[in-house]
């Protein structure tokens, strides 16, 4: 369902005064709730709630042959499904572009930040490596799906342990105590542009009022590094605006990181 022109107008007018529909500041996030180990057959799982947006992510591990161009590294696959269970805006059927873009954004944040140490997922060079499957399922959607999904994926990975490997076969249901080899966790912060303002953590109504969005995935141990960027939406941005959203991500990601830092302890 599209939001009405009237709602859009009110959102825009409030923003001119620096206000939002639900009383938040422009850079203020809604309450974040995290649950882990929500599905016992997954090697790692988590549920993240940001406001009314709720995403579950499960991690499954398997072994297989490595890719020809990286004989000594494990592999990762990220998939997302926007099930009509979560919103009347979603339809059944094969993944649409929105689901594919979401999965790829989460994939790049994890891959490019080298959150998973793929070299340590090698069992025997050229023969056998671990494959990491990350499945993203929104359960209820009220905006900011990219940031919520990335966070849920990162936390699910932090909870994952290896299953028992015997004669090169995984014995499902039997887990070791060995955790996945992980580095510094990436955080994705997406800014949405409405008129000339940028806001964080939008609701669906705010998202639909926005002309464009940029996602910034970064890590911040020792120094800040940006690992993935993506602009979407119909508007174009100036260089100054790009600067602004990068600064927003740099300044605000810590809040999200600190909220879940307990999961990132090594």
């Amino acid at each position, binding site marked *: 369902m599209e939001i009405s022109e009237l709602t859009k107008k009110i959102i825009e007018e409030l923003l001119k005064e620096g206000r939002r529909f639900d009383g938040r500041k422009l850079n203020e996030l809604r309450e974040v709730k995290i649950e882990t180990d*929500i*599905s*016992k*057959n*997954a090697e790692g*799982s988590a549920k993240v709630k940001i406001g*009314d947006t709720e995403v*579950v992510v*499960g*991690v*499954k591990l*398997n072994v297989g042959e490595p890719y020809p161009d990286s004989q000594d590294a494990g592999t990762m696959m990220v*998939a997302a*499904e926007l*099930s*009509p*269970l*979560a*919103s*009347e805006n979603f339809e*059944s059927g*094969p*993944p649409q572009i929105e689901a594919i873009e979401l999965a790829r954004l989460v994939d790049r944040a994890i891959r490019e930040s080298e959150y998973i140490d793929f070299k340590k997922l090698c069992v025997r060079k050229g023969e056998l490596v671990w494959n990491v*499957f990350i*499945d993203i*399922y929104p*359960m*209820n*959607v*009220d905006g900011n799906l990219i940031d919520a999904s990335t966070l849920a994926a990162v936390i699910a990975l932090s909870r994952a342990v290896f299953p028992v490997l015997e004669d090169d076969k995984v014995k*499902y*249901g039997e887990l070791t105590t060995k955790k996945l080899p992980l580095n510094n966790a990436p955080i994705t912060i997406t800014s949405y542009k409405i008129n000339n303002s940028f806001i964080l953590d939008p609701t669906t109504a705010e998202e639909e009022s926005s002309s464009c969005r940029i996602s910034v995935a970064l890590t911040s141990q020792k120094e800040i590094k940006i690992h993935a960027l993506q602009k979407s939406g119909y508007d174009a941005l100036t260089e100054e605006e790009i600067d602004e959203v990068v600064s927003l991500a740099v300044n605000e990601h810590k809040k999200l990181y600190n909220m879940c830092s307990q999961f990132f302890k090594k």
Partner: protein
Amino acid sequence: MTKSTYKRPDGREYDETRKVEAEVGIIKNADGSAMFSFGGSKAIAAVYGPRQLHPQHMQDPEQCVLRCIYDMLPFSVPERKRPGPARRSVEISYMTKKALEPVLHLKSFPNTVIDVYIMILQADASTRCAGINAASMALANAGLSMNELVTSVSTGKIGDAIVVDLCKEEEDYKIKKDGIEIKAATDIPLAFLSRSGKISLIQLDGNIKPEELKEAIALGKKAAEKITQVQIQALKKVNED
């Protein structure tokens, strides 16, 4: 009751279900929603509608169309399941629709559709039963007029015992005969209408005598009566909050 030597893997009595949990109103965007679990089998259901059905040629001028989609999360099972429907889930979706249809007043809403989406979060057998129970509660939570609730439970014959609410280990139960392992599990998913006691879902696969089937159905009906109370309590609770 049949005398039997079979011991259940989790120490349950033959007529005892696993721990049953139910919660209503878990998905805010949906018109109705619920969670239902039998031990390690956990299902959530969302109901959208009655709403307009597009494309128009799918509309039924006589009554509302009920659509059900059952699916399992890829990580709900030990070995990752590829996302998307398979023959198994398509058939279960259809059986679920048939199990729910008798209690709904579909003639009241011609040309519309009610969509029921069921997702299995965690699987340990009897997932279709958990899904039907969640869906039945979600339909009630959506405020749809219903004659009665639908309560589903599996029964079966494991070894020589008639039991209720099979777990995965029981579903896969084998015995050795002349040195070869043979399947010794009969799985019977059932759904009962809560007032009339009628059966809206019955499937069976395995190997069972007619008198044993009768016993299994009676056992399922007793268990379903208790489960219905859990569903009703969960529905009442959401209205109080």
